């Protein structure tokens, strides 16, 4: 018999029907479901023995103590110590080594050679974005060893403050409740002081302050001077109310509050003379304001160290070679400010950084550095501690090959003997024999005198903290002149006043939870406008727009915020935008 097409059809149909009664299809269904449970591409968390390690957070000068949950060598969660939690950024510090924007390769030799071949007459400078570290001392020694060497700090190290004893805090835009000092200490104190926030925009701190003075941007100095005059029992200059946009009686009442409800404390985002003057008038010096104390340093270092020069006080067009240490960012000076100091004819800029987001965009050489929690460094004394402290950001993970340790690089450049600086410093502290060292694993703190150096050193490497026993010293710190950003000059072409909100750099991609996935914070590259202002600029919520200043323009995205004062544009400032806006600027927003 020969098979026809019909037979084939019959066979196909029959087998199809038969298949249903075999386990095959059902088994397949189940398997597809199982497969969808661990879809290809869904990462499997590594399992392993879990243990705890301690270190200190190096992301901001606050330097909180950190307890890391590690699977094997890998930290999987960072938390603060009981009662001293971390901020949102600190909680995800362990992501930074894997930041997509990270740079791990750089032309080390070429950079060294280029520096070596500079013309020796032009000065060579190190800009240390976070002064007060042991690394800073290394820089100072190196710069002392090099002719025309300069050690630059972005600004004078502001004095330490004591929130705990303050009853009234007058803050000129200081982000008190947004990661200013260790969150824990601030909030512990917050219970006890009354906060008057002077700020043009409704920042979270302003929102939570007892009194928010929505001041006209740039007129802070005027207000501070006015209050100072009131404290001196002088009359209030009539134009102040108009200038600052704050009614006279309110200024008067604020002045009365700070005067009567002492001890008072005046703080600011950027230190400025009028503020220091207020602190002096209020007698805060020595009560709530102290000079920042440093941990002991080896004798040999202090003898041969370049002086700390603030960046502002350097002569323009004088720096031939500028080395910038961005490995521990704190304040970011807009490029325009930096550029002013460089020699006009091709200056050499070398930056130590982990990403191109900062000065890497302008420097000839970017030398990759380790990031927290890879770095080994100490932390400058905290803003809120009157006593000197010394603690290490001990590495939790090993840095990748090819990264540079900035102080080592600079020391080698200056032909300093290569010695383990941190260890020497610890040695000096141990020799001084003052203070106590506290370790977190057992939560004990013992006088340094009673521990051997090796134990002291290992305690520090396990996130231990040395605190000086020597209390705060009375002599008031002499205030140095610097200026609060002056009101930007009126320009009809640029109608809006810029208020920048710094975005800590770098931050884990997971902070998209705050920046993108909720509108809790103004995300980088976004600007906030009052609805009315937005209407005038012809932009709508979420629209793409261009921000224009005298220095150029950049693409931004608009958020409408009815809380914003009209005529002000608030910029979530990445370094790029800070370069664009500078310390104080006017701008206009254009629809694109």
């Amino acid at each position: 018999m020969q098979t026809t097409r019909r037979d084939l059809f019959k066979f196909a149909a029959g087998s199809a029907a038969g298949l249903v009664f075999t386990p095959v299809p059902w088994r397949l269904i189940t398997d597809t479901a199982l497969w969808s449970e661990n879809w290809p591409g869904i990462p499997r968390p590594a399992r392993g023995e879990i243990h705890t390690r301690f270190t200190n957070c190096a992301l901001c000068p606050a330097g909180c103590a950190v307890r890391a949950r590690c699977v094997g060598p890998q930290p999987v969660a960072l938390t603060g110590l009981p009662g001293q939690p971390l901020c949102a950024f600190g909680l995800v510090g362990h992501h930074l080594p894997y930041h997509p924007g990270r740079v791990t390769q750089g032309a080390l030799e070429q950079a060294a050679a280029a520096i070596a071949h500079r013309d020796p007459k032009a000065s060579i400078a190190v800009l240390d974005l976070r002064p007060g570290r042991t690394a800073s001392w290394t820089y100072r020694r190196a710069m002392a060893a090099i002719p025309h060497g300069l050690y630059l700090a972005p600004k004078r190290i502001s004095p330490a403050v004591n929130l705990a004893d303050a009853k009234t805090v007058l803050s000129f835009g200081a982000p008190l409740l947004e990661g200013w000092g260790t969150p824990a200490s601030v909030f512990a104190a917050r219970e006890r002081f009354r906060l008057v926030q002077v700020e043009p925009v409704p920042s979270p701190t302003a929102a939570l302050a007892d009194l928010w003075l929505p001041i006209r941007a740039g007129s802070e100095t005027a207000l501070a001077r006015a209050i100072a005059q009131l404290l001196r029992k002088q009359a209030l200059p009539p134009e102040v109310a108009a200038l600052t946009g704050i009614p006279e009686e309110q200024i008067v009442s604020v002045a009365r509050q700070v005067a009567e409800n002492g001890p008072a404390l005046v703080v600011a985002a950027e230190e400025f003379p009028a503020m220091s003057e207020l602190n002096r008038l209020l007698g805060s010096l020595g009560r709530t304001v102290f000079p920042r104390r440093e941990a002991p340093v080896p004798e040999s270092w202090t003898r041969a160290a370049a002086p700390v020069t603030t960046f502002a006080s350097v002569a323009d067009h004088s720096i031939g070679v500028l080395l910038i240490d961005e490995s521990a960012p704190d304040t970011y000076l807009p490029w325009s400010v930096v550029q002013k100091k460089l020699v006009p004819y091709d200056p050499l800029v070398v930056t130590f950084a982990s990403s191109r987001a900062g000065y890497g965009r302008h420097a000839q050489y970017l030398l990759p550095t380790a990031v927290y929690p890879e770095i080994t460094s100490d932390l400058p004394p905290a803003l809120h501690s009157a006593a000197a402290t010394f603690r290490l950001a001990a590495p939790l993970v090993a840095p990748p090959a090819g990264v540079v340790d900035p102080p080592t690089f600079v020391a080698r450049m200056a032909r300093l003997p290569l010695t383990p600086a941190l260890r020497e410093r610890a040695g000096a502290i141990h020799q001084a024999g003052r203070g106590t060292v506290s370790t977190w694993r057992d939560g004990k703190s013992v006088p340094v005198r009673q521990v051997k150096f090796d134990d002291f050193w290992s305690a520090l490497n396990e996130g231990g903290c040395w605190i000086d026993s020597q209390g705060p010293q009375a002599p008031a710190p002499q205030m140095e002149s610097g200026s609060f950003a002056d009101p930007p000059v009126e320009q009809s072409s640029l109608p809006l006043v810029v208020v920048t909100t710094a975005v800590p750099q770098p931050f884990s991609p997971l902070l998209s939870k705050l920046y993108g996935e909720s509108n809790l914070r103004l995300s980088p590259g976004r600007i906030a406008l009052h609805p009315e202002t937005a209407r005038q600029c012809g932009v709508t919520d979420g629209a793409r727009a261009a921000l224009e200043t005298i220095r150029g323009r950049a693409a931004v995205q608009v958020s409408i915020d009815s809380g914003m004062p009209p005529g002000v544009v608030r910029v979530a400032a990445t370094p790029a935008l800070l370069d664009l806006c500078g310390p104080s600027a006017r701008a206009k927003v254009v629809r694109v």
Partner: protein
Amino acid sequence: MDRQLIARRLPRCPARQFVLWLLPWTALLAFGLYAAGLCLVKGLNQTNMDNRFAFGLWIFLDLTVIALGAGAFFTGFLVYILKLKELSAVIYSAVVIGFVCYSGAVAVLLVDVGQPLRAWFTFWYPNVHSMLTEVTFCITCYLTVLFIEYLPIILKNRKLRQVPSFLVFEFQLHKLIYVLAGAGTFLSFFHQGSLGGLYGVLRGRPFAFREGFAIWPSTFFLFIISAVAVGPAFILLTTWLVSKISQRRLVKPQVLDLLGRISGLLLSVYVLAKTVDTLIWINRTSPGSGFPAWQYYSWNPFGTWILFAEIVVFGLIPALILLIPRLRRRTGWLVSAALMACLGVALNRFVLTVQTLALPTLGFDQFVSYRPSWQETGTFLAVVAYGVLVYSFSFRYLQLFPQERALEAAPAAEAEPVEEEPVLVGRYSL
């Protein structure tokens, strides 16, 4: 070949013209399938739905389409259970429409869920307290029933019936069709209802939440009534449309008239029920859960106009038109009334789906809006195209309108004479 497939005495347009008609729809279908494919492969991020707008165009489409498809079960019920023989003129067409609507809806649902591979979980771990379970069960069962009802219509095709076994099976199945009609009625009745219940049970969405009887909120019953009211209207509409497009007389005018009358009656019942329900909701249910009802309509663009449009413009007015014989007899009025009825139900489904989700519930959240992405719209259009194609093929190659031949044979539709006693004239008196 093409002609061999078309039944005798049913003039159909030449093959070329048919192909020309298919082309645009096929293109649309292809585009839509591409869009749907994107959603399946890349995930639902291709849509503009989001955590606030968890449902969007697709759910709205499903609800509407299924309501319109209700004609299939309701006509089946009238013809086979209530023995309303006049309507057998449209029953086949109704079945095809029902099949198209339901299969389309199910297809879209499969794209809409995040994990289509787990669709069968609902049958494996059913949560019988969930209206969605009821919907899933009923719709899948009813789709099977519809397919079985569709089968004989296909087997009736001139070529297929040449095969003896097909012929016989079709014959035997058709004898038992009333059982299927019964089952279909039961299933549809429940899932039309549970589709309404879907929203009525949302205690957390006071805009949609309704009290009701036993485990069923009032929307359960409202959906049933509205569906059976609009089902005949939609059949009326499609029949009229098809006969316009094909330029053939498909059914006797009385049939359309009857459909209109049924639809009108049920629609008026629906309008009444809906009004009562709305009043109860405004005055008791909604305030009871802490939401003053006026607040829902204080968010643009959804003002009280939408309530008015739903109940009066697209409810009461068509109902009246369909109830007044004089108006009903005018095709223009009849058809536009049917259209309005359909739109009314679509609007009702829209309000329940979109407005419910757009309205804020927390004191500090906002009224959100949503615009479907092209992928969503594409998928939507694919279903429409699919429907048109299936119906076109069915209309060309199957006999959807039994009366068509008769009307062809006797162009002047004379009133059916009745059999009478023999007149006793001599035989062969010629």
